[in-house]
């Protein structure tokens, strides 16, 4: 039997995304056999990062100062805003290096089954931005599953106003963690071009 302290470390690690029970065990066993200094350094880095990082009050991105550097960047096209589900989605779009506009993180998608309603998402914040910023075009980049599609449809309806162009790109894959045989795991739909909604 493993000592209690290791068991609880494993339990804590297993809660992390992408870490299954077996890798949690491997990491825990590795950590408890690593030099104390190194482990302390890791622990400090985790705490430090957590304390420093906040959400940008404008776009919802992860940042150390709010508004974030993207919102503050005057060279970016402020008339174009890309709506994404999660803050990390910004990173992958930035990596592709083709988008020169700004972002808005929704914080999820509407899910009647999980009890996520429009009010739980940062839609009101977006509406506020629409009145305060010179936004002319919105690109919706949500995942292409049923909830992502319905959320996009809902947003397109709700955000409609004169002089605003709304389009959609298929983005990302529905997450397929935990292998449940009965479920389709990935529904790869190629990145179709923007479709005006």
């Amino acid at each position, binding site marked *: 039997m493993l000592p209690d302290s290791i068991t609880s470390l494993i339990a804590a690690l297993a809660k992390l995304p992408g870490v299954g029970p077996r890798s949690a065990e491997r990491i825990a066993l590795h950590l408890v056999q690593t030099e104390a200094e190194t482990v302390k350094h890791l622990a400090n880095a985790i705490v430090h990062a957590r304390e420093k990082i906040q959400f940008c009050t404008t776009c919802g991105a992860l940042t150390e100062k709010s508004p974030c550097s993207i919102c503050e960047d005057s060279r970016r096209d402020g008339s174009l805003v890309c709506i994404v589900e999660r803050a990390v989605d910004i990173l992958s779009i930035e990596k592709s290096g083709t988008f020169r506009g700004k972002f808005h993180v929704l914080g999820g998608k509407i899910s009647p089954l999980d009890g996520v309603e429009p009010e739980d998402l940062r839609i009101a914040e977006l509406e506020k931005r629409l009145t305060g910023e010179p936004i002319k075009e919105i690109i919706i980049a949500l995942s292409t599953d049923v909830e992502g599609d319905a959320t996009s449809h*809902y947003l397109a309806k709700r955000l409609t106003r004169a002089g605003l162009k709304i389009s959609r790109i298929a983005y990302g894959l529905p997450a397929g963690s935990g292998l449940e045989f009965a479920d389709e*795991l990935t529904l790869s739909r190629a990145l179709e071009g923007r479709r005006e909604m």
Partner: protein
Amino acid sequence: MHLAHLRLRDFRNYARLNADFAPGFHLLLGDNAQGKTNILEAIYLMATLRSFRGVGSAQMIRHGQKGYFVGGKVVGQGEREIKMFWSARERNLTLDGRAVKKLGDFLGTLRTVVFCTEDLQLVKGTGRTRRRFLDLLLTQTQPGYLPLLQRYMQAVRSRNALLKQFAPDPRLLESFSEQLVKLGNELIRHRRELIPKLSPLARLAYRRISNDAEELRINYEPSVKTDFSVELAQVRDRERRFRATLIGPHRDDLQLSFNDKSAAQFGSEGQKRTLAIALKMAQAEYLTGIHGSAPVLLIDDVMGELDAKRRAGLLPLLERARETSGQVFMTCTEENWPRELGRELQRWEVKAGALHGAKS
């Protein structure tokens, strides 16, 4: 296509099993409750990831054990190796050693058609059984069908959750309705195209194995008659009362009739049984036609129940499986195995969770 090797660990009453199977006929003989059907169940599981007994995976774990393993080698165009492990904590499915990411890529590795006593539900049971039949057949023949069906069901569930709310946001309901209609229309199109192809095969099969001259008809009975969105709008008030999505492919049915009278209501027991088998034969014929090789046929007990005439009607299908180097697994008890099937079969004795090759 045939299953060349089967490996079981802690599956039902098998602690462990390793068996090699050649193409052709395999007769699994044994007393009751020895594990004959369990073998067919395991083979079907590798093909569809479901039990044909309609139970969940937990029930298939050998009593007192943590998880089951089912693995097999399928020889078709090439050789594929399937391994699945299932426990409450861990599920693992690999094809040729690589984790399966897309179910669509996996289904079709092994194709089976099962004939079992539960088939009678195709005639007597609710529409759900018949929809399952259609869905399985379409999944086995149309690459995009399964993901489409899963998306559609997700749309139905989401929409139902909305309808359960006290005052659903109309714009939100509209957004999920749009998904429902878009995906639903696709499903309807697939099903509508399938029936005219399946129907003649079922008629032919029925004529071959029945003793009567009645004309079998299979009609698609879609829940949506012409325009999904329009009809959905028409039932809005009722939906609000029932708090559920009331129309759509999840309410489709197949109408089975003899001389234009409902088979379930007016058919005799014998006719119903024969019709159920005819539907399964049509499934096998259709798969053979599409893929150019026969599916593995899993025949559980039904042969023993049939009289000589109806058995004889099944023979051409079994023969064809043999001609296309397919495979047939058939369970029987010693007293009722169909001896007319001849010498060219491999006999196996099943006893208390063990399988032994027997001399024919």
